[in-house]
């Protein structure tokens, strides 16, 4: 009898888990399992949200019409954590996993620890002649490691400053803000006159610090994947955020529903973020503010500096364990480099694509009611080339966690704490953790 190896057991467990998950989902749908129905190949696609699946289903219909492939796709939606965990386990067990999967940006680093579990898409993208057609900071950088591209995203997450124009106008705040210094002047006056805040400070999550640091060319990692928390850019951003609270013209961001209430009531009159923030969360959570928002480029740190950044996103990856790697890659790259397919996601979720040629379609730059008729697409296209490169590392989770725990939150709650010292401590813990894990 062949010995039972750890891998064999893991495979069995993974396959059982996937079967249970798939089975329960199918049972939930009330339909019969759809496997092995015909001679065609069946590729499996795992995702964690139906909204992203919807546009990809439509893209696949287009793909079938144009390419007439000899395969179908089986779509499976699992809860966010469960999907990523099972993807990881099945990929390591080399059994029971999908051929293609949606991978959220903060989950991606887990898949590049040790052996990378995804297929490199770069060569094929270059062969297709599409490499230079992508906005890389959102399309490929978040899923890249050591010059290889393990995923591709369609969401152009160029960050902008969204502001309540009705409140700004009433308070006489200038909309011609070019620099952060100018913004601070306006914010101080706004607070003095109204008692409200032009912007708040995110102190329990790294989003705001990240955007403002990336604007300056900084970030969590350098090109080699080494942590750079205590870089001059990082220290400058955290000092700026701390000063905003110390000087009294800004406030710490409330969590959960109270944050939405603050935006709705105008107690906080602007926010930084990409389209999933201003087109997604804001429109879903405070629909009553429709028509009261405008967007503008983020103020610069210095003349000629970047007026945007990128934050978040979900990429599509092809698993190395797939039996149909070529087929999977062909579809994934098709849907990310075909204007018609990408427009589906714009129509469904108001997501601007990372594929530059798509912007020639007038639909993407049409005036939007929620933003008082502003042509948001034009603004996104204008600032997107200014997004600085953000680097990834397998230790993203450890680094961002140390940053929030040891630098951001304590420095914003204790204004006597030196931002440089707080960031230095976070940097040191990250280095120690990496050393412990890799020694």
């Amino acid at each position, binding site marked *: 009898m062949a010995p039972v190896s*750890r891998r064999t*057991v*893991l495979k069995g*467990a993974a396959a059982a888990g996937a079967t249970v998950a798939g089975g329960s989902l199918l049972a939930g749908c009330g339909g019969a399992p759809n496997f092995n129905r015909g001679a065609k190949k069946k590729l499996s696609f795992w995702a964690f949200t139906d909204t992203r699946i919807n546009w990809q289903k439509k893209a696949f219909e287009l793909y079938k019409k144009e390419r007439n492939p000899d395969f179908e796709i089986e779509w499976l939606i699992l809860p966010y*954590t469960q999907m990523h*965990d099972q993807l*990881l*386990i099945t990929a*390591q067990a080399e059994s029971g996993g999908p051929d293609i999967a949606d991978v959220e940006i903060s989950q991606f680093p*887990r898949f590049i*620890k*040790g*052996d990378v579990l995804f297929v490199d898409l770069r060569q094929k993208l270059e062969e297709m002649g599409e490499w230079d057609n992508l906005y890389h900071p959102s399309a490929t950088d978040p899923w890249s490691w050591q010059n290889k591209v393990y995923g591709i995203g369609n969401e152009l997450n160029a960050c902008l400053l969204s502001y309540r124009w009705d409140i700004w106008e009433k308070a006489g705040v200038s909309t011609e803000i070019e620099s952060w210094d100018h913004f601070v002047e306006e914010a101080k006056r706004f607070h003095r006159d109204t008692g409200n805040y032009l912007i708040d400070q995110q102190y*329990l999550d790294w989003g705001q610090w990240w955007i403002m640091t990336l604007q300056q060319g900084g970030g969590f990692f350098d090109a080699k994947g080494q942590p750079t928390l205590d870089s001059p850019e990082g220290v400058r951003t955290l000092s700026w955020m701390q000063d905003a609270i110390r000087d009294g013209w800004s406030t*710490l961001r*409330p*969590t*959960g*529903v*109270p944050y939405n*209430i*603050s935006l709705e009531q105008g107690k906080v009159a602007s926010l930084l973020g990409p389209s999933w923030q201003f087109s997604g969360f804001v429109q879903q959570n405070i629909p009553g503010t429709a028509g009261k928002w405008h967007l503008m480029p983020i103020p610069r740190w210095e003349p000629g500096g970047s007026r945007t950044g990128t934050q978040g996103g979900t990429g599509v990856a092809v698993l190395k364990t797939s039996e149909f790697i070529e087929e999977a890659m062909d579809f994934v790259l098709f849907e990310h480099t075909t204007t018609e397919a990408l427009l589906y996601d714009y129509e469904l979720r108001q997501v601007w694509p990372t594929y530059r040629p798509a912007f020639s379609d007038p639909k993407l730059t049409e005036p939007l009611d929620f933003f008082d008729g502003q042509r948001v697409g034009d603004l996104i296209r204008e600032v997107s080339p200014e997004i600085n490169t953000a680097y990834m590392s*397998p230790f993203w*989770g*450890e680094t961002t*966690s140390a940053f*929030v*725990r*040891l630098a951001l*939150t*304590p420095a914003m*709650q204790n204004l006597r704490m030196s931002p440089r010292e707080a960031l230095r401590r976070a940097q040191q813990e990250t280095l120690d953790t990496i050393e*412990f*894990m890799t*020694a």
Partner: protein
Amino acid sequence: MSTSTLASRIGRPLWPAREWWWRRQRRIAPYIFISPFFILFLIFGLYPVIYSFVLSFTKGFGFEERSFAGLTNYIHMFSDERFGMAMRNTTIYALGSIVLIGGVSLLLALAINSRLVPWKGFFRTAFFFPVLTSEVVVFVIAARILDEQYGLLNFALSKVNLGPVAWLTDPKIVMLSIVLIGLWTWTGINALYWMAGLNAIDNDYYEAAAIDGAGRWQSFRYITLPLLRPIALFVVLQAIIGSYNLFALPLLLTGGGPSDASLTVTLYIYNQGFQFFNVGYASAIAYVMTFFLLAVSAINIKFFGGWASPGE
């Protein structure tokens, strides 16, 4: 001979295998009936337990390409500030559970058990309800009540010129908030345990004490409390084990923050094992906690003089 008897009974010759089965089925059948549980337990219970023990001596990412690391993971725990913080927070919760929840639930049980309180069934059910509530629902309710700006609790405090208190975002306060939520959730069921103990005490003891001139306090001090000792042990052990398994509530409510102020040991194990994929270290922490809980439980059993009631 039994074979011929069996063959003659069924009227035809038997294959050796069937014959073997016919002769032993009565003895084997019960084991077959209970085997599904043991097979599942071996695969999904015992195997992970043993495998995680092996993992705790290894290093590497995930489950692949692991290398033997000896006691490195266990040694690292002693210099790991986050682990220390998680232990501290969990111990605060455990102490809060034992003292606050244990104490309040005993008072509640005494009150409900009192002859002066009507509608005992209603109160028992009402206080038990939070236990039936999903932790997600508890989180949603708690988040609304404890919110700094719009929360019900701060609104009430503002009426007496107190607050606002950052219940969930002040590192000094957040564990107290979680203990208070625990108090709301677990007091009812603990009160039921105490009530079961109170109802088991024979009334003759109290009557005898009354004849001897004992007052209410003396009866409580010298009859009720000693006879509740097995229940007290159960409540304390439950509180300790439950506290060191605290996971969902801090995960949902604070994510272990701010700055690890509500990080619990189980949350840290999850964080290391599933978020950072540092499964060797996560396994080592899990084993240390297992032995820690065994030791604490043993000390408690010794302290309370075992499970038996006094005089047994």
